[in-house]
C-alpha cells in the first residue's frame, strides 16, 4: 500500500505543478478578443480579412516588438458573431468574463457592435470597432466604446459631396434593413435637409437575407434616378449590382457602393461584365503613405497571402496593435486601466497618422476616422490600387 500511496502522491504533486505551470504560462500572455463574422448571415469574407490583419499584428508584437508590458506575448481569442446581435453579445460575454481579454476588437456589423456595447457598458471590457460605422456605436458616449473607422455622418458627407461634384439631383438609396443600412439612409435624409443639398431621395429597403431584389429594383428603375447608392453588405452588394444590370439600371445609371467591397479579389470574378463604371467608397489607397508598422504589415501580408492588403486587414492589424500598445502604456491588463490608456494615449496604426480617441461631442467621441475616398473602376479587371480616385473627403467637424 505504501509504495502505491507514495506513487499516487507523487503523481498528484506533479499534476499540481503542471497546473500551476500552466497558470503561470497563461499569466505571461495577454489575450485580445477578436469578434468577427465568420459565418452567415454575417459577412465571412470581411471577418476573414480582418482576422488576417489581426494575426499579423500578433506576429509583429510577439516577434518584432518582443512582447509588451515587460515581454509578455499577446494572443488572439477569436469568436464568430455570425453577424447576429444575440450571438455577438454571447461572444463578447465569453471573451470578457471567461477568456479575460483586455479588449475586444474586429467588429464589422454595426448591429452587433451596438448590442455588444450595451453589455460592455456594464462589464467594462473595452470594445474597439474595426469596421462599423453606425453613429450609435460612439454617439452614446459609453466609456468602453472606441472606434477606428469611418462613421456614418462622414460617409454621408462624402456621398453628398460626390453628388454635388457630379451634378446629380435624384438619388435612390437601396439599403438593407440593418443598423448600417437604415443608419446611412436616415443620415442621408437628415444631411440633405440640413445642408439644403436639394436632392430628391428615394429610399428602398430590403431584408439582408433576401435573394431576389427584382421587385425593389424595378421600383428604382421607375424612379429614374441619377445615382443609385448600394447600401448592402456582403452578398447583397453583388446581388444589387447583378440584378440592377438585369432590369436595365446598370450600366446607364451610375452606382456607388457604400464600402470597399469592390476591392476584394472576388469582385471581378463575380462582375466581369458589369463591374466597369462602379464607384465605391474606400479608406485606403496605395498612393497614401503607410506608417513603419503599416509597411511591415503590407509586406508580410503580400508574402503570406499573395495579395495586396486591403483596408479590412490593415485596420484589423491596426486595432490589435492599438490594444497591445494600450496594454504596454497601462502596464496593466485591467480593463479600466486599458480604457484610461486608450483615452489618454497616442497610438501607431497602419496609416501614417497618429490615432487618438478624443472626448469629443456626439458621434466623434472615442472615434478616429481615416479619410474616405471615392474610387471608380473604368476598365474591366481593373486593380483597385490603380482605380481612378474621384475624390477624397476628410470629415469630422469637432
Amino acid at each position, binding site marked *: 500500500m505504501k509504495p502505491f500511496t507514495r506513487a499516487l502522491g507523487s503523481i498528484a504533486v506533479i499534476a499540481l505543478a503542471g497546473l500551476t505551470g500552466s497558470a503561470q504560462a497563461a499569466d505571461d500572455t495577454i489575450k485580445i478578443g477578436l469578434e468577427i463574422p*465568420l*459565418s*452567415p*448571415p454575417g*459577412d*465571412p*469574407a*470581411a*471577418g*476573414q*480579412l480582418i482576422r488576417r490583419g489581426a494575426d499579423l499584428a500578433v506576429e509583429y508584437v510577439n516577434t518584432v516588438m518582443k512582447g509588451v508590458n515587460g515581454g509578455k506575448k499577446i494572443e488572439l481569442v477569436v469568436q464568430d458573431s455570425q453577424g447576429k446581435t444575440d450571438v455577438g453579445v454571447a461572444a463578447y460575454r465569453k471573451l470578457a468574463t471567461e477568456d479575460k481579454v483586455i479588449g475586444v476588437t474586429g467588429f464589422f456589423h454595426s448591429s452587433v457592435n451596438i448590442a455588444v456595447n450595451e453589455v460592455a457598458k456594464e462589464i467594462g471590457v473595452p470594445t474597439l470597432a474595426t469596421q462599423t460605422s453606425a453613429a450609435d456605436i460612439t454617439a452614446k458616449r459609453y466609456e468602453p466604446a472606441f472606434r477606428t473607422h469611418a462613421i456614418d455622418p462622414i460617409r454621408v458627407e462624402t456621398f453628398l459631396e460626390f453628388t454635388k461634384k457630379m451634378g446629380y439631383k435624384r438619388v435612390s438609396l437601396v439599403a438593407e*434593413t440593418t443598423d448600417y443600412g437604415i443608419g446611412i439612409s436616415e443620415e442621408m435624409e437628415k444631411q440633405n435637409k440640413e445642408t439644403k443639398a436639394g436632392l430628391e431621395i428615394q429610399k*428602398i*429597403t*430590403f*431584408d439582408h*437575407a*433576401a*435573394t*431576389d431584389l*427584382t*421587385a*425593389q429594383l*424595378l*421600383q428604382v428603375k*421607375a*424612379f429614374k434616378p441619377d445615382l443609385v447608392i448600394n447600401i448592402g453588405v456582403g*452578398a447583397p452588394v*453583388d*446581388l444589387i449590382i*447583378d440584378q440592377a444590370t*438585369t*432590369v*436595365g439600371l446598370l450600366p446607364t445609371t451610375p452606382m456607388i457602393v457604400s464600402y470597399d467591397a469592390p476591392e*476584394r*479579389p*472576388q469582385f471581378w*470574378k*463575380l462582375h*466581369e461584365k458589369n463591374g466597369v463604371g462602379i464607384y465605391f467608397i474606400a479608406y485606403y489607397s496605395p498612393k497614401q503613405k503607410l506608417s513603419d508598422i503599416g509597411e511591415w504589415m503590407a509586406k508580410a501580408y503580400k508574402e503570406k497571402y499573395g495579395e495586396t492588403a486591403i483596408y479590412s486587414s490593415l485596420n484589423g492589424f491596426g486595432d490589435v496593435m492599438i490594444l497591445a500598445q494600450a496594454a504596454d502604456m497601462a502596464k496593466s491588463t485591467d480593463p479600466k486601466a486599458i480604457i484610461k490608456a486608450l483615452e489618454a494615449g497616442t497610438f501607431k496604426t497602419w496609416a501614417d497618422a497618429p490615432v487618438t480617441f478624443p472626448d469629443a461631442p456626439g458621434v466623434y467621441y472615442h472615434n478616429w476616422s481615416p479619410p474616405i475616398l471615392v474610387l471608380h473602376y473604368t476598365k474591366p479587371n481593373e486593380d483597385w490600387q490603380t482605380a481612378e480616385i474621384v475624390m477624397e473627403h476628410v470629415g469630422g467637424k469637432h
Partner: protein
Amino acid sequence: MFSTELLVQTLIAGVMIGVLYALMALGITFIYSIVKMINWAMGEFYMIGSFAQYLLVVFLLGRDLWWIAVPLSALSVFLIGAALEPILIKPMFRQALERKDEYATVVTIALLLLLRNLATGIAGPNQFTPGSNLGVVMLGPLPVTGARFAAFLCTLAALALFYVLLKRTWWGLALRAAAQSRVGAQTSGVDILRLDQIAFGVGVGLAGLAGALLAPEFQVYPTNGVVTTVKGFEIIVIGGLGSIPGALIAGVMLGVVESLGAAFIASPYQNVYGFLLVLAVLLIKPTGLFGERVRQA
C-alpha cells in the same frame, strides 16, 4: 408608385421565382412522402449542387456547356444522398427506434451543420459564380437574365419529367405505393429500404438541381441554401406536405405574393408576406391547400 407595367413585371418575376423555389419544395415533400421524415439539410444539398455546377463549368466544361453540367451536378448530389442514406437514415427503420421523428430531426440538423461548416472551411469566405453567356431575355416588359429564364424552363421540364416518371414507370408505381403505405408496399414485395435510398437520393438530387440551375443567379457560397430551404418549407406548408402539384402551385403563390408585396406595399417586409400567406393557409386549411389528413398506426 403603381403602374400597369410595374404590376405586370412584378407578376412575371414572382411566377418565375416561385417556380424555381418549387423545385426545392418538391425535394422536401418527395422525401417526406416516401421516407416519412423532414430533411432539414436540404439547403446544404442545394449548396452542393451549386458548387458542383460552379466547378464543372469553370474548370471542366466552360460556360457554353452549362446544360451538360446541370444534370451532372444533380446526379452527383443524388449519389451523395444515396450514399448517406444507409448510414444516417436507414437505422431509423432497421432498429426499433421509438422516436423516429426526433431521430430524423437530430440527424439531419447535424448533417446540415457538418456540410455547412465543411463547405465554409473548404471554400472560404468568398462568393463564386459559374457565370453565364446567355443574354438578357425580354418577357413582356420584364428583362430577365438568360440564366434565370433557362433555369425556369429547365425547372418546368424537370417537374414534367418527374411527374411522368412517377406516373408511368415501375419505380414510380413503387414510390407511390410506398407513399400510400410502407407496410403495404413491403408486403407486395417492394424492397422498401432500397426505395428509401432512392427516394432520399432523388429528393436531395432535386435540391441539387435547383442549386445548379440557380448558381449563376444567386451565386455560390456555403450558406446559399439557407433562404431557399426556408422558402421550400413555406411552400410545402402552403401546398400540403406530400403533394407534388401543391408544391408547384404554392411556389407560384408564394413568389407572386412576396413580389407584389415588396413592390407595392413595403419592400423591407418581403419575406413577411410569405409567412402571412402561410398563416392564412394554416388558418383556413391546416393540412395545406392540397394536403390530406393522414392516420399513422
